[in-house]
């Protein structure tokens, strides 16, 4: 079978769309003044990331990104937004505090970025392994219960703590106000 004409260009185009979605979504999430649009930007970023994962031959990760980040986390955030005032302008911060926190955030993110750049340039890149057909139930079960069992258990503990915290807050919330 002869290859489809300009297949490389098509693939490049889809890749460009994925990158564009990720970056544009992140910009919307940060720059938008309306909270609900920020969440939509976040969802867009997650889509872009899912597409990029798909490009890296990890369909399972891509689907999980959509299922968890778009389907669960964004929905939860929007639900929280709904409980707040609709489209209310945020309270004015004093300029001094804004500069302080902004500067701090800049320093921290700059440091993280610098460290990542050092890591990326200082070390050899691992060749991406193709996992196009990985992700059968068997593989997942083995991975979760052997290689990643510690992380798996830790995550379940974190979730348990979160549930308990939510219960405590819900228990105290109504009676005091």
């Amino acid at each position, binding site marked *: *079978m002869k*290859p*489809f004409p300009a*297949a490389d260009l*098509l693939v490049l185009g889809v890749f460009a769309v994925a990158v564009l979605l990720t970056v544009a979504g992140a910009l919307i999430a940060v720059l938008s003044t*309306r909270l*609900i*649009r920020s969440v*939509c930007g976040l*969802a867009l970023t997650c889509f872009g990331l899912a597409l990029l994962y798909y490009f890296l031959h990890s*369909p*399972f990760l891509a*689907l*999980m990104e*959509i*299922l968890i980040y*778009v*389907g*669960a986390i*964004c*929905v939860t955030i*929007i*639900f929280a937004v*709904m409980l707040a005032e*609709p489209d209310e302008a945020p309270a004015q911060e004093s300029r001094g505090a804004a500069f302080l926190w902004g500067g701090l955030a800049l320093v921290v993110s700059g440091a993280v970025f610098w460290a990542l750049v050092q890591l990326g340039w200082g070390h050899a890149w691992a060749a991406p392994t193709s996992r196009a*057909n990985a*992700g*059968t*139930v*068997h593989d997942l079960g083995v991975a979760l219960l052997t290689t990643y069992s510690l992380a798996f258990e830790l995550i379940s503990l974190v979730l348990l703590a979160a549930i308990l915290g939510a219960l405590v807050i819900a228990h105290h919330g109504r009676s005091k106000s």
Partner: protein
Amino acid sequence: MNVPEPYRLLLYLVGTLAFVGLNAAYLVWVERKGAARFQRRPGPTEVGPAGLLQPIADALKLLSKQVLVPPEADRLLFRLAPLLVLMPALMCLATIPFSAALGARDLNLGLVMVFAFGSINVLAIMLGGWASRNKYSIISAARIVSQNVAYEIPMLLVVITLLMVTGTMNLREIVEQQAGGFWHWHILRLTANPLMPVTFLIFFICLLAETNRAPFDMAEAESELVAGAFTEYAGMSFGVFFMAEYANVLVGCSLATVLFFGGWQSPVGVGSGLLWFLLKLYLLIFLVVWVRWTFPRTQFYRLLNLSWTLLIPVSLGILLLTAGLLKVF
């Protein structure tokens, strides 16, 4: 077939859009006829024989209407929401194997894909309701989140139960496991789990809730919330929401057919094919319509209580039982 991938993609897109559009148009007809018969009246009769051309007239009417955007609304999100509702359903259809040879994509992760994209539906309806800046829409948007979150849990638990029985997330392989007579279908695989019919019942109830069909259509609830999240939508943007609802019913019933009723497998073991799939699919869809016009809409709190106090414990119990049985035998 040796068709290059981009052509396959195009073919899939055109085919699915045509199928979803026609399906929505004629399910509206089925719904109206069904409702009428349940209420002992004839239903649409004027346009075409037995009202069969009514959907086309409706579509023309919707298409010729102006798309109004209320001045207070968030214009961008308001216009985006109908598209976002329809797209996930189209993506889900990519993984459904309609017959042994007819399916857009044979993914090992088909089941995960359906649920990943199915979860976006709630986000889209919620955005539409929120962007409308209308109190009924916002109430409906808040309802739809709590409802979908509550019903996603038993749905996923039931699917995990089934996953333990099948051992694969590839929808085609799941169908192939059920070959050879109706007693091999998963709904009757009582050796793996004697409560399999109950599992299907939970799945079906969750399907009704997830697709916002009566008696669980709290998002629309026309007797209390005008039209819920769709109150401010006019013309074809309203029509697209309806198309999406029927597309979601289609995806849900296809999934039920694949998971519980053996997909394209014939009940007697010979002559399997696409026709069997469509027959089972539309019987299930008819069941959905039947339920809608038979049961009144529930109260919102009873709806949530049903999930948290009955469906989740029962589905968890079934999960444990199945795990135990699989371990012992």
